[in-house]
């Protein structure tokens, strides 16, 4: 159990410290990375003995009451993949130290690489769909970040394509995994074989199969998604070697192998997986002769190998499964070797062009050796691992399509091996301008290490590979295998076919130019172009939708919002009792109704600014009278005072705006606006009626009033609610008020010369002098009595504020500020501070922030109300003063 967790956690922990350690010392970071990955591989190998008998399992409880646990299971196939990920990763880490020596962002690269390795290890050991999906997506994201490491436009484009393809595939895979779970009823991949009959009998089984295969095809670059892999070669070469040859692209194949016990052997599986594999092989073979860049050649040969693996997995039987497992291992070793070789060539000559390179064996003998060893394995020559794989593939069987595509793939691999591993070193001609030099040991070492690994696996194939590979194949195929892997002496005997393949491949390699000429005229990149056209169409569709819905016209948004709101209210209103007893309407109500109606109508249809302001003012005063008549004197008082100030504000601001009569473009869709207005009005009426018919807690009011008296020590329940019971709300509200006033000050810059547009009236000036002290007294009185009688801090602040506004209008902003003795902002801020202080007393004296404390008739709620009072004075004067002194006219 400890080893299984360590396999995943070692790279993850190293990833956390990679960036800081790279800042400390590049060498240290490289060693750390290599050690973490090698340790991870060692832990994976430590799980191998158990994998041969009873695999180690780790269950992590997750969302316990809802579902099953997260599960890790180290079976033979998982251990093989985890060992590869760790081992190749360690080699690549050392290689990075030589290849990207001294480059910026190395720590970031290593951290991403380690995160990727952790995700890959998680995927190798995961046994439930959720962990598989998470690890799967994480590898896609890490691949994206690593491809983007160079930050060139090509890398961005290629990385984005790869991310989109594999990301979309990941979503399809998630659907597939969930369908598998629904269809089979098991939540563990390892139990799929046992649940096979249930799975295949379920109507969801087919859909599950198709979804899983599509998801795997995107990740493993199978046709028609193969186009992203050559693009991803924009990544640094060691990253390509690691992700896009040895490990990540194997994830799809690996998952296909994981679900093989469930789906393998069905006709659909054979047709789909085998067909995609064969098409992938064809597509890769078509492109190989045209590629000049060594990395592109290797990328297409990786596509080729992935197609081969898919074909092998589509076949039934243990021999084919064994061939797939062995090829998976051998390919990781030789493709990693060749990638690192190509990186070394690039490093030593500055080019990867097949046409320019040649004759490198003198200048780069060690690289040449690595290339030779890698190519030998890739060609399937004895005694390399590739030979064992190729001999086992011969035993796989299958129909003519599978056999033919496997043969084609074997021939093409020989050719690619020649081009990449032999030709640059042994060719006579070369671009004379090249000045090759051998790479350092940090580059040569890992390449040779992987090459020797391939050699060792081949030499000791039967003994080293056999147990794990046989077990993995047996798990896959659901049946044990007689005998073992082909070993050297027996295979030598039937070498005829191998010689034939070799001869064909070398001929193809020799006839490269002729092959290129033969395939050059065929249409290219069809899948890529179809994908991009689809993407283009999607973006165009999005733009079209935005054009329709996000037209930028505020009124359109409003109309739609209001209509939707009214529509949502409609079902509720339909069930409403519209014939509710109206009750006697007092006589005074009718003139008030008339005032409100006329005021609203004037505001809505006025032709002049002043009339519109008057209409709005009439509505405001009408509201105040309604409040007064219906038991809300505090509201009436506040409304009247606010109305005075709002009318002043409107007049001050509207004088800058054009007159309503002034020409505007003609209005269209008036009837639509009228309809929206009427519907909104009906919805509001219905809302009020609905609320009135549902008195949820009729006695709540009385209880609040009683509580206000008993605990808040005040007879005016409205005021007690504001300054005591819900004082925190009020504190928030006055903060908002202050922010709004600061916003006004920020938006309206005072004119260069503050001047008064309103003619100064001596009568007004004199009156303001008289009114100010009276208003101040009245304000103090309102504040003092607010706890028991109508009044309170809001009303008091508005009262004094209105008097100072009168001073400002009559004698100018300077006079107003002189009257206040401080800037309005200081008043507002000071008020907030006083309110906060009142709250802090409660916190210090006990009970919590804003908890009331009384000392005779004085209490902290009174102090809080004083803060409200002072703040309101400040914000009122601030707002009016700014609009009063605003510069005139448009900029």
């Amino acid at each position, binding site marked *: 159990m400890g080893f299984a967790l360590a396999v995943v956690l070692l790279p993850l922990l190293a990833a956390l410290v990679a960036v800081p350690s790279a800042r400390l010392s590049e060498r240290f970071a490289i060693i750390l990375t290599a050690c973490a990955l090698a340790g991870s591989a060692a832990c994976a190998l430590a799980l191998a003995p158990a994998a041969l008998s009873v695999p180690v399992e780790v269950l992590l409880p997750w969302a316990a009451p809802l579902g099953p646990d997260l599960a890790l299971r180290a079976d033979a196939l998982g251990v093989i993949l985890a060992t590869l990920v760790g081992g190749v990763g360690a080699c690549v880490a050392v290689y990075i130290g030589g290849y990207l020596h001294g480059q910026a962002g190395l720590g970031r690269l290593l951290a991403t690489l380690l995160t990727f390795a952790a995700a890959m290890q998680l995927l190798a050991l995961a046994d439930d769909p959720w962990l598989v999906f998470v690890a799967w997506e994480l590898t896609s994201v890490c691949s994206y970040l690593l491809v983007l490491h160079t930050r060139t436009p090509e890398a961005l484009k290629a990385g984005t394509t790869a991310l989109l393809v594999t990301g979309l595939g990941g979503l399809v895979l998630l659907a597939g995994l969930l369908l598998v779970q629904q269809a089979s009823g098991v939540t563990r991949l390892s139990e799929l074989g046992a649940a096979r009959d249930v799975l295949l009998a379920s109507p969801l089984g087919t859909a599950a199969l198709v979804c899983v295969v599509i998801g795997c095809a995107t990740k493993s670059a199978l046709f028609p998604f193969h186009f992203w892999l050559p693009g991803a070669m924009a990544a640094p070469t060691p990253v390509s070697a690691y992700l896009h040859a040895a490990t990540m692209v194997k994830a799809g194949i690996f998952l296909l192998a994981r679900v093989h016990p469930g789906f393998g052997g069905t006709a659909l599986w054979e047709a789909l997986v085998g067909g995609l594999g064969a098409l992938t092989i064809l597509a890769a073979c078509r492109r190989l002769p045209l590629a000049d860049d060594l990395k592109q050649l290797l990328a297409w040969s990786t596509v080729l190998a992935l197609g081969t693996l898919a074909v092998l997995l589509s076949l039934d039987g243990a021999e084919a499964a064994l061939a797939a497992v062995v090829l998976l291992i051998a390919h990781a070793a030789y493709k990693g070797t060749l990638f690192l070789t190509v990186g070394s060539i690039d490093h030593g000559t500055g080019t990867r062009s097949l046409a320019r390179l040649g004759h490198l064996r003198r200048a780069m003998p060690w690289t040449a050796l690595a290339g030779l060893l890698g190519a030998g394995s890739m060609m399937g020559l004895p005694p390399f691992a590739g030979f064992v794989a190729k001999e086992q593939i011969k035993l796989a069987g299958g129909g003519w399509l599978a056999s033919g595509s496997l043969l084609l793939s074997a021939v093409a691999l020989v050719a690619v091996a020649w081009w990449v591993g032999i030709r640059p070193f042994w060719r006579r001609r070369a671009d004379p301008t090249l000045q090759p030099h051998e790479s350092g040991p940090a580059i040569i070492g890992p390449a040779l290490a992987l090459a020797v690994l391939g050699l060792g696996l081949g030499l000791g194939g039967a003994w080293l590979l056999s147990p794990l590979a046989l077990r993995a194949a047996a798990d896959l195929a659901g049946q044990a295998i007689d005998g073992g892997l082909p070993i050297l002496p027996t295979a030598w005997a039937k070498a005829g076919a191998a010689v034939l393949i070799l001869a064909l491949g070398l001929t193809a390699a020799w006839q490269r130019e002729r092959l290129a000429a033969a395939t050059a005229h065929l249409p290219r990149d069809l899948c890529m172009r179809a994908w991009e056209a689809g993407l283009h169409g999607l973006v165009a569709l999005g733009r079209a939708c935005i054009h329709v819905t996000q037209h930028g016209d505020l009124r359109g948004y409003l109309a739609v919002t209001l209509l939707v709101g009214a529509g949502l209210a409609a079902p509720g209103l339909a069930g409403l009792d519209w014939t509710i007893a109206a009750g006697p309407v007092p006589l005074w109500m009718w003139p008030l109704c008339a005032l409100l109606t006329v005021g609203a109508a004037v505001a809505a249809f006025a032709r002049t600014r002043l009339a519109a302001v008057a209409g709005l003012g009439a509505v405001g005063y009408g509201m105040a009278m309604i409040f007064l008549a219906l038991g809300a004197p*505090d509201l009436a008082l*506040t409304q009247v005072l606010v109305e005075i100030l709002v009318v002043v504000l409107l007049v001050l601001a509207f004088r800058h705006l054009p007159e309503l009569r002034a020409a505007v473009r003609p209005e269209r869709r008036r009837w639509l606006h009228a309809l929206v207005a009427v519907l909104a009005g009906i919805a509001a009426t219905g809302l*009020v009626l609905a609320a009135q018919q549902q008195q949820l807690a009729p006695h709540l009011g009385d209880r609040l009033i009683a509580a206000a008296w008993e605990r808040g020590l005040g007879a005016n329940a409205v005021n007690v609610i504001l300054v005591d019971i819900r004082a925190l709300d009020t504190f928030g509200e006055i903060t908002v008020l202050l922010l709004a006033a600061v916003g006004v000050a920020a938006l309206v810059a005072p004119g260069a010369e503050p001047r008064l547009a309103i003619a100064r009236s001596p009568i007004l000036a004199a009156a303001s002098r008289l009114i100010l002290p009276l208003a101040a007294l009245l304000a103090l009185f309102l504040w003092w009595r607010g706890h028991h009688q*109508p009044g309170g801090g809001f009303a008091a602040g508005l009262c004094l504020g209105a008097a100072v506004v009168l001073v400002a209008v009559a004698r100018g902003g300077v006079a107003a500020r002189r009257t206040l003795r401080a800037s309005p902002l200081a008043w507002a801020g000071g008020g907030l501070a006083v309110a906060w202080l009142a709250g802090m007393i409660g916190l210090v004296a006990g009970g919590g922030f804003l908890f009331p404390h009384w000392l005779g008739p004085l209490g902290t709620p009174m102090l809080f109300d004083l803060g409200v009072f002072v703040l309101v004075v400040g914000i009122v004067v601030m707002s009016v003063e700014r609009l009063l002194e605003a510069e005139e006219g448009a900029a």
Partner: protein
Amino acid sequence: MSVLLAVLTGLLVAAGTWLVLQRRLLHLVLGIGLLGHAANLLVFAAGGVSESPAFAPGGTPLPGAADPLPQALVLTAIVIGFGATAFLLALAWRAFRTLGDDDLPGWCGSEPPLEDDHPEPRP
């Protein structure tokens, strides 16, 4: 009477909606003012109406006293409405000064276009 208040609320909402759907900046400000009144009346009326205030002189609530909670909500809403109106007017002033036009649909193109985060794939 409750019905009358409900109808009045609907009337104010309709007038305010009509105004905010007009194309003049001034109308927008007026409409929001009317909608503010409508919202206050809505909360006030929805809480149930009574003619005696929510007072308890001497500790006993007046008979049939109104519910103080909607009143407290509306009171702060009135003052906040003042702050909002001031801010809206300042915004209107700034917008008119910057754009030189009080025709709302005319502002449509004035917003700088969004940065294209994802360049279109080259075909």
